[in-house]
């Protein structure tokens, strides 16, 4: 309805993405200010069980679109289903997570609805103009900009994971589920997936990781990344890398942090053998705490690090892993 805030509830392997809860908490405040309801859209196949979780974080209504053709994400089907629901419900604000999936979905939906999209937002608030104001980094985080929207609704924002706070859930809440007829046929989906190649396994994607251990050219070779894996294991962290390490072929492209890699916001970022080039910093300087391990005390990374260790990483990392094991026991 007119003053509602609607959150797209992305599901991955049977679980709702954490950024969805972050958006619900922020969305609740926006809906209260607008005097509307907070709603969510849940799309997939066999996902109804997840609806209550959306209520725990404040959604009063969950629009549920189930169809076998929605089990796997496709740009065509998800764009159609989400855009159709939004057109019907006419919320004032639409929020989508700025995940790999969300980055594919949001521009098409906004374009189809002929509305503005602020992508990869780090803050969303009601502006003095009575519309949404979205805050987002530009120029790889060298500029932080506020965006205003035209009168066209819904004002759409894709929200960067791991930035907005989550309030504790109220697990006694039950969702009011509104089933939507997801009238999708296979002709609607113009592309077809012929193969899936799993490389990352179970690990949390860098963009959503709470702790990241990254290696650069100082790692000297692919075999040494095992050392970082061990440190990551103790911390429950995801391993990342600088472009130098990726271009050397030591680690996958999808693990690259930086301007031409992934932009990350973990609570803790541990940079091992990374000099801190401007394009690398662009991808990680919003980390809450940065640790740099580098044997060159002049390395630019120390200008950004909260804690610097000037030493040989091949000595530091194994001891670090052992010491952390002790406190984790």
């Amino acid at each position, binding site marked *: 309805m007119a003053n509602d805030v609607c959150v797209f509830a992305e599901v991955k392997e049977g679980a709702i993405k954490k950024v969805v809860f972050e958006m619900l908490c922020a969305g609740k405040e926006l809906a209260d200010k607008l005097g509307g309801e907070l709603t969510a859209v849940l799309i997939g196949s066999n996902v109804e069980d997840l609806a209550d979780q959306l209520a725990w974080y404040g959604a009063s209504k969950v629009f549920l679109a189930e169809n076998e053709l929605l089990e796997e994400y496709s740009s065509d089907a998800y764009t159609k289903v989400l855009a159709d629901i939004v057109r019907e419900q006419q919320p004032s604000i639409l929020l989508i997570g700025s995940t790999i999936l969300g980055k594919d979905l949001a521009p098409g939906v906004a374009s189809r609805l002929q509305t503005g999209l602020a992508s990869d937002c780090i803050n969303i608030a009601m502006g003095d103009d009575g519309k949404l104001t979205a805050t987002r980094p530009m120029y790889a985080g060298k500029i932080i900009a506020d965006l205003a929207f035209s009168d066209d609704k819904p004002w759409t924002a894709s929200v960067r994971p791991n930035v907005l706070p989550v309030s504790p859930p109220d697990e006694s809440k039950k969702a009011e589920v509104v089933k939507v007829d997801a009238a999708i046929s296979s002709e609607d989906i113009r592309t077809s997936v012929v193969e899936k190649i799993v490389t990352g396994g179970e690990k949390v994607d860098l963009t959503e990781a709470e702790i990241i251990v990254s290696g650069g050219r100082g790692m000297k070779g692919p075999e040494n990344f095992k050392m970082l894996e061990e440190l990551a294991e103790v911390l429950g962290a995801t391993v990342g890398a600088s472009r130098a390490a990726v271009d050397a072929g030591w680690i996958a*492209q999808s693990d690259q942090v930086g301007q031409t890699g992934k932009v990350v916001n973990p609570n803790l970022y541990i940079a091992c053998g990374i000099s801190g080039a401007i394009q690398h910093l662009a991808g990680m300087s919003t980390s809450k705490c940065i640790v740099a391990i580098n044997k060159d005390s002049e390395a630019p990374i120390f200008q950004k690090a909260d804690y610097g260790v000037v030493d040989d990483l091949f000595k530091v990392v194994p001891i670090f892993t052992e010491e952390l094991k002790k406190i984790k026991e």
Partner: protein
Amino acid sequence: MNIVVCMKQVPDTESVIKPSGDGVGIKTDDLKFVMNVYDEFGVEEALATKEKAGEGKVTILSMGPDRAVEAVRMGLAMGADNAVLLNDAALEGADAFATATALAKALESMDYDVIFCGKQAVDGDLGQVGIALAEILNIPHVSLITKFELSDDKKKAKVNRQIEGGEEVIECPLPAVFTCQKGLNEPRYASLPGIMKAKKKPLETKDLAALGLDASAVGEAGSKTKITKAASPPERVAGKIIDGEETLEIVVKLVTLLREEAKAV
């Protein structure tokens, strides 16, 4: 086989970017402008695809001010056959929606089987235009491609697309838009003969009238979002260098600080 590469000229990634006096833009005086990195992947893939197919035409399509012609020439020097530059004061200040509107209009009078865009332009970092363009043109898109292969009948493309935790191999009918991710290829450099040849290649500049669009549909007027404030982020200050005689001593201090001060582990 007609391949169009949408290309934007942007500040070099090394640039120091500062807000301008008006508080909504950036200082551009000292900036060095180059072809957007992700669009370089698009140009390379277009040229490689044409070479492999043994026929075809590669067109650079760009919207930008006068200086953008340099990046367009670079595309021609790399090997593109011709270029179209949309240049008009009315096109300035465009968000992704208004940009895609203008590019789509230009494409109306062009032949295209494949459109390559970058994953994002590293100025505004929007990551929207390619997908919005596909939506306006009512053709499919595949984003974040790391591999591109034309089918023998040239009616389809088989591409790898980055997803969370891996890749998907997708078949997509043409015409379609593909947004290029790093890993797709290694862009070639423009050779000296390439630079010389580029000077003679067709480069058409279109203003709003030639494009056939109303000023209200493009640029700032046609945009759905508008920057109201642009500021530098808070500076991160250098923290502590942890001292100690032995690696063990330093690491023990680090762990204590991470636990007690930063509460990060």
